[in-house]
């Protein structure tokens, strides 16, 4: 007899994709009523395993039992019928329809007449049961990202899911929303639901999970670890296969002159709507300044304005005392503002590594000289000195540990971490006065994150001013000397002694002044 306390048992699951074994004889057990974290780097095989459990892929070998019954899923429909539902990282909702309509979409009931008021009530009850507060009559586009996620969860619950798979659910949430999500997850387990929590973030996993299974390179490196019996270091070791240091040493140093001064900056986004609304901030030499905020609150536009890629409608940006954007910037028709700002000593790690930061079908060498090709020694008159360019690329490949067969390899063949090291190598080797780093560790695995963070700290020690934009609050707190919080194109406040709660409130639109008020009243 199999133990019926196991909601799901996967035995010896093997899935081969051409050239890789994405899942190699993986065993996975989910107990009823637990939150089980599936931890691993990108490409470790977490998603493949869960796609097998939800019927999206069929395993080449292995068996699945759900509540003690052997099952074989031919499609996601079969998996839902067995009570297995998944909340994907990217929501699958129709923005112009209401919450209820989205939840009912694709179901056999109601058949023809849509008795919406009845279903509003049903869904409202279901939402209350799990503390998933959302108005069933609201249209999806009116909801925040956190609320949309609740709709996704409600969708799977309404379909009768007992086993909920959450794929990196916190990636899009503000800290308060994360706390609310965790409360919801806990209340769901109290009702007897079981949850698989896919993540590569150790802090969260430690906070929410009961047990943890760690995957690496398609295999289970350790299964069913009790959270109480482990720590971050041990988990990171299992994930990466080597020791990872978390305590990045931020040596205290006196910051120097103001390098970047942004004053009362206004700009509009691609849709023509205001993206920056009177934003001011400053960064001094030898400082890392963090910019915290939920994605889409003007961070991208700010970086684009500072680097000359977007026009400011009002306001001034000074770099090293010189006005580079706005009234008083040098009138130069011949040179692009972007080029002028690069020449002023500003380097930029763009958010989008593939589409902005690199050129996929050019070689590693060509990608490395992207900004330096105009100056000697790489440039020689009208020509590019190929041997010098090549040896420069070779040197950076060594120094920054870019893993490629040769420097003639096309950039598109590089992994995320390698590509980011290439971009950092290029941007750092120009010895910039100011570095704008946009989400420099997003999507990277633990080992790569560590090396990128180290490089940023090194820049700080070398006296560069670094503006770090990140959605990872932990990262901002670990690296920054000071943190600004941006919300809808405005700075809500700044802090040198970061407090997660306070930053979280500012990230959702509370001004620092008002925080103080509330504090005093309380």
């Amino acid at each position, binding site marked *: 007899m199999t133990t019926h306390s196991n909601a799901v048992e996967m035995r010896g699951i093997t899935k081969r994709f*051409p050239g890789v074994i994405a899942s190699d004889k993986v065993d996975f057990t989910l107990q009823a009523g637990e939150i089980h974290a599936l931890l691993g780097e990108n490409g470790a095989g977490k998603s493949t395993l869960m796609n097998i459990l939800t019927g999206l892929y069929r395993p080449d070998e292995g068996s699945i039992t759900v509540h003690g019954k052997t099952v074989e899923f031919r499609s996601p429909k079969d998996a839902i019928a067995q009570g297995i539902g998944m909340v994907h990282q990217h929501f699958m909702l129709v923005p112009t329809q209401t919450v209820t309509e989205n939840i009912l979409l694709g179901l056999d009931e109601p058949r023809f007449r849509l008795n919406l008021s009845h279903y509003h009530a049903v869904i409202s009850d279901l939402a209350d049961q799990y503390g998933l507060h959302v108005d069933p009559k609201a249209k999806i586009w009116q909801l925040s990202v956190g609320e949309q996620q609740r709709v996704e969860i409600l969708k799977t619950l309404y379909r009768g899911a007992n086993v909920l798979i959450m794929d990196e659910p916190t990636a899009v949430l503000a800290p308060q929303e994360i706390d609310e999500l965790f409360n919801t997850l806990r209340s769901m387990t109290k009702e007897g639901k079981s949850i698989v929590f896919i993540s590569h973030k150790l802090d969260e996993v430690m906070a929410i999970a009961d047990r943890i299974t760690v995957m690496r390179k398609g295999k289970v490196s350790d299964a069913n670890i009790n959270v109480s019996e482990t720590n971050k270091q041990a988990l990171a070791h299992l994930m990466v296969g080597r020791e990872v240091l978390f305590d990045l040493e931020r040596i205290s140093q006196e910051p120097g002159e103001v390098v970047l001064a942004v004053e009362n900056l206004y700009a509009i986004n691609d849709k023509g709507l205001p993206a920056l609304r009177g934003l001011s901030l400053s960064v001094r030499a030898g400082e890392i300044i963090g910019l915290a905020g939920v994605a889409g609150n003007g961070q991208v536009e700010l970086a684009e304005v500072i*680097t*000359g*890629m977007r026009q400011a409608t009002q306001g001034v940006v000074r770099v090293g005392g010189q006005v580079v954007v706005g009234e008083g910037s040098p009138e130069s028709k011949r*040179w*692009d503002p*972007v*080029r*002028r*700002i*690069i*020449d002023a000593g500003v380097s*930029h790690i*763009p958010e*989008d590594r593939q*589409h*902005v*930061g*690199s*050129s*996929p*079908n*050019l070689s590693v060498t*060509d990608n490395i*000289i*992207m*900004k330096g*090709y*105009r100056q000697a020694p790489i*440039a020689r008159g*009208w*020509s*590019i000195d*190929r041997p010098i360019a090549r040896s420069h690329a070779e040197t950076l490949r060594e120094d920054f540990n870019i893993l490629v067969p040769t420097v003639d390899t096309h950039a598109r*063949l590089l992994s995320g971490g390698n590509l980011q090291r290439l971009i950092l190598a290029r941007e750092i080797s120009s010895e910039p006065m100011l570095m704008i780093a946009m989400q420099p560790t997003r999507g990277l695995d633990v080992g790569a994150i560590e090396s990128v963070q180290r490089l940023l700290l090194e820049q700080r020690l070398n006296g560069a001013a670094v503006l770090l934009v990140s959605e990872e609050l932990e990262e901002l707190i670990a690296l920054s000397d000071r943190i600004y919080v941006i919300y809808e194109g405005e700075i809500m406040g700044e802090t040198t002694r970061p407090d997660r709660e306070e930053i979280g409130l500012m990230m959702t639109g509370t001004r620092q002044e008002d925080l103080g008020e509330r504090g005093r009243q309380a």
Partner: protein
Amino acid sequence: MNDIAQPRRKFSLQGKFRLEPRMEQPGWLSALISLGAVALALVLGGIVLLMVGGSPLRAYAFMLKAAFGNIGVFSDTLTKATPLILVSLAAVIAFRMRLWNIGAEGQFFAGAFGASAVVLTPILPADTSPWIMIPTMMLAGALAGGLWGFIPGFLKAHFNVNEIISSLMMNYIAVAWNNFFIFAIWSEGGFQMSPQFPKSAWLPRLADYSAQIPALRGLTTHLGLVFGILAAVVIWWILYRSKWGYEIRLIGDNPKAARYAGINIVRNTILVMMVSGALAGLGGMAEISGVVHRLQGAISPGYGFTGIIIAWLAKLNPLLVIPISVLFGGLILAGREIQPSGISMLIQGIILVCLIASDFLLRYRVRFIARLEEV
């Protein structure tokens, strides 16, 4: 475990074709697939020949002889290849930046007009030394072609006008413009052509030296071939060794990255279209001055469009353009010798379709995935 006999299960072999992107595209594979595509095109062309009652093998053998059979016809092939090299280079440099200049044909006509204008206006008298006449005609041809490229380039850069449409439309304007001059202004005795150019405006041919070297008698290959080869080397150097060429390749591969690197895309768009037009214009000048020796209507059997095919066949490599242009020159020449003469056009068309289709194989690997399915 339960021992209840399972009902007998039936299986059938199922499978499907799956496409996987290729990680690497080695050079030999590219060459192999291109050769395979050309071979397939010849087979398909052969089938068409069979259908119309011809013998494909005999037809191909005849074409081969007509184009490469002896030094005389080979010289003619090289003469045909000369304008092809120049217009193909025009396509190569523009396509490298993903500027779809379809207007090489019109730029070719504009170049022919510019060169002719030097002689016919006349800007320079007929007894001018060839040492002055020829360079002036080259300059005028390149400038006129460059202007024809500038217009779609400017519209693209400043108003984001689709260069495919505008450069294509410019072709008709160029042809009509030339027609106006050969019908109305420069026509000779009511014929739709200009008077013949003076000898000083002729590019030297190999045959011109037959007095010294008898073996060169009757050979039509002219100095334009040297322009073509030099231009190919220069364009290769620009693309792979110069700062400007690096900008062109970067914009072509990823305009957003180019913007991020501070490269002026507007200026480069105009510049590249002008250089592209100038190369095609030089092709027009070479044809007028090296072969036709007058301005007339039928100076191009669609060189500008054939150039697009050649540029793709050469995978946008300026040096590869030379041998492929020679092959196409031979194909055009052979087309004149066999009936119906449309055959060579037909084969050209089939080659292009096969090549475009083969590019897919270069990017993807096709796999058959078999599995057992229970029925």
